C-alpha cells in the first residue's frame, strides 16, 4: 500500500516540477501587447490580457478539473480503503497485550496538540472531499458551508501543525534504520510480531509527518491564494492544480493513518487518548525506542 502512496507522491512531484518548468519558460511574452500586426497577433495579445496564457494553464486546468481530479479522488477513496480492508481480512490487526506493562508514550501536551490537529485535519479532508464531490451532494448551502469549514479548519490546523513540528522534529528526523523499515514495509505484511526497526516514530509516521508539514504548508499557501484569488490568473490556476494533486496524496496518507490507528493496531486509538502504549507494542513496532 505504501508503495502506491509513494508512486502517487512521486508522480505528483514530477507533475508539479514539470508544470513549474513550463511556467517559468513561458513567463513574459504573453502580456507583451506590442503593436499587433495581424489580427491573429492581436487576438493572441488580447487573450493574454483577458485571461493570461489560457492555452497553457487554462486548458490544462479545465482538462484536469473537468476530467481527472474527481476520478482520481474517487479512486483513492475507494481503492485505499479496499486495500486496507483486504489487509485487515487477510493479515488482520496487530494485537498487543494491553494488560501488560504500559509505557507513557505521549505527554498530555502532545495528546492535546494531536487531538486538535486530528479534528481539524479530518474536517479539512472531509470538507475538501465534499467540495470535490459537490455535485453528488447537490451543491448549495451545504457545500458552501463545507467551503467555509475548510477555511476555518485550515486556520485551526495551522497551529497544532507548528507545535507538532517543534515537538517532534527531533524524533522525526530520518535515520538509517528507516530504510530497513521501508524494505519490510513496517512488518505490516506479516502477522508475525517481529521487532521492526523504528525509534519513537517509524518511517511511515515520519513520512506522514513530513508530508503533513511540507504538504500542509504548500496546501495552506495555495489555499490562501485560491481563496482570495491573490495572484494573477495563471498562478491561481497552477496553484489550484497543485492544491488538488497534493490533496490526493494527503487524502491517501490520511486514510492510511486512520486505518493504522483505528484498525491495524488494535488499541492505538486508546494510546493517543491516554498517552500509554503497551510495552509489547513499543518493543515490536518501535524496537529502537529509548526508554527514559
Amino acid at each position, binding site marked *: 500500500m505504501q508503495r502506491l502512496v509513494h508512486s502517487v507522491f512521486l508522480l505528483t512531484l514530477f507533475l508539479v516540477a514539470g508544470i513549474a518548468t513550463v511556467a517559468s519558460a513561458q513567463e513574459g511574452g504573453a502580456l507583451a501587447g506590442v503593436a499587433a500586426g495581424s489580427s491573429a497577433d492581436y487576438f493572441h495579445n488580447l487573450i493574454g490580457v483577458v485571461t493570461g496564457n489560457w492555452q497553457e494553464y487554462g486548458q490544462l486546468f479545465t482538462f484536469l478539473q*473537468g476530467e481527472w481530479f*474527481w*476520478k482520481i479522488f*474517487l479512486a483513492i477513496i475507494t481503492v485505499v480503503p479496499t486495500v486496507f480492508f483486504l489487509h485487515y481480512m487477510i493479515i488482520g490487526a496487530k494485537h498487543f497485550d494491553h494488560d501488560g506493562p504500559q509505557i507513557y508514550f505521549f505527554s498530555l501536551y502532545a495528546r492535546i496538540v494531536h487531538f486538535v490537529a486530528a479534528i481539524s485535519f479530518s474536517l479539512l479532508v472531509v470538507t475538501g472531499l465534499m467540495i470535490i*464531490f459537490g*455535485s*453528488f451532494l447537490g451543491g448549495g448551502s451545504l457545500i458552501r458551508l463545507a467551503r467555509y469549514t475548510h477555511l476555518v479548519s485550515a486556520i485551526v490546523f495551522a497551529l497544532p501543525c507548528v507545535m507538532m513540528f517543534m515537538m517532534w522534529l527531533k524524533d522525526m528526523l530520518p535515520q538509517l534504520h528507516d530504510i530497513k523499515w521501508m524494505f519490510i514495509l513496517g512488518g505490516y505484511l506479516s502477522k508475525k510480531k517481529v521487532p521492526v526497526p523504528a525509534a519513537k516514530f517509524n518511517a511511515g509516521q515520519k513520512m506522514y509527518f513530513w508530508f503533513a508539514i511540507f504538504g500542509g504548508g504548500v496546501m495552506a499557501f495555495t489555499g490562501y491564494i485560491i481563496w482570495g484569488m491573490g495572484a494573477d490568473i495563471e498562478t491561481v490556476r497552477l496553484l489550484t492544480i497543485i492544491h488538488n494533486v497534493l490533496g490526493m496524496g494527503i487524502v491517501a496518507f490520511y486514510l492510511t493513518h486512520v486505518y493504522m490507528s483505528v484498525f491495524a493496531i488494535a488499541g492505538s486509538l486508546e494510546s493517543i487518548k491516554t498517552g500509554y502504549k503497551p510495552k509489547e507494542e513499543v518493543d515490536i513496532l518501535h524496537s529502537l525506542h529509548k526508554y527514559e
Partner: protein
Amino acid sequence: MARSKMKTSSHAGTTSGSRVTLNPKVARRSFLKLSAATAALTGVAMTAKMTTKAQAADKKEPYPGSQTVRTICTYCAVGCGIEAEVHNGVWVRQEIAADHPVSYGGHCCKGAGAIDMVTSPKRLKNPMKKVNGKWTNLTWDQAINEIGDKMLAMREKDGPDSLMFLGSAKVSNEMAYQHRKFAAFWGSNNVDHQARI
C-alpha cells in the same frame, strides 16, 4: 458526477418552444432575410425561434400594463432615442429604441444609464439655502419669495444689469426661449449659456 454538458432548465422549454408553421423552411428563410437586414443596423439578430414571443395564451410580461414612452437622451447633441418603460408611474427600465433613425438603439455609457438621471440618490431633493454655512431645507414658497425679494431689491438699487443670468443648453427649446425672454423682460442683456464656450 455525471457531467452532462447539456442540461435543460425547467423553463427553457417555454422560452424556446417550437414555432408551428406549415412550411418551416420557407418561413425561416424569409424571416432570416428580414432579421439579417435589421441586424445590420441594430446589431441584434434574434430570430423568433429564440425569443419566441410566446403565443398569446401563455404570454407573460415582467411589467404587466406598462407603457413605453419615446423620449430623447439628455447627454450629447446626437439626440439618441430612448424608449422608457413606465409602470405605475415609475420608470422601471430603459428599452432599446431599435428603430430610432439616428441611433438605432445605440447608446454610449452615459445614455445607456439615462434612467439614473431620475433614480440617482444624489439628486437635490428640496429647495435649500445656506444658513451659517449649513445647508437648510426651504419650502418652494419661502425660496422663491426670498430670492424674488432680493432680486427686486437689487434691481431697485443697482439696476437690472446687476443680474447675470446663465441659462442652459440642457433644457428644451421652450425653456431656452424662456430664459432669453426672461432676460429681456427683466431688462438686461447679461444672459448667456454654455454655447459660448
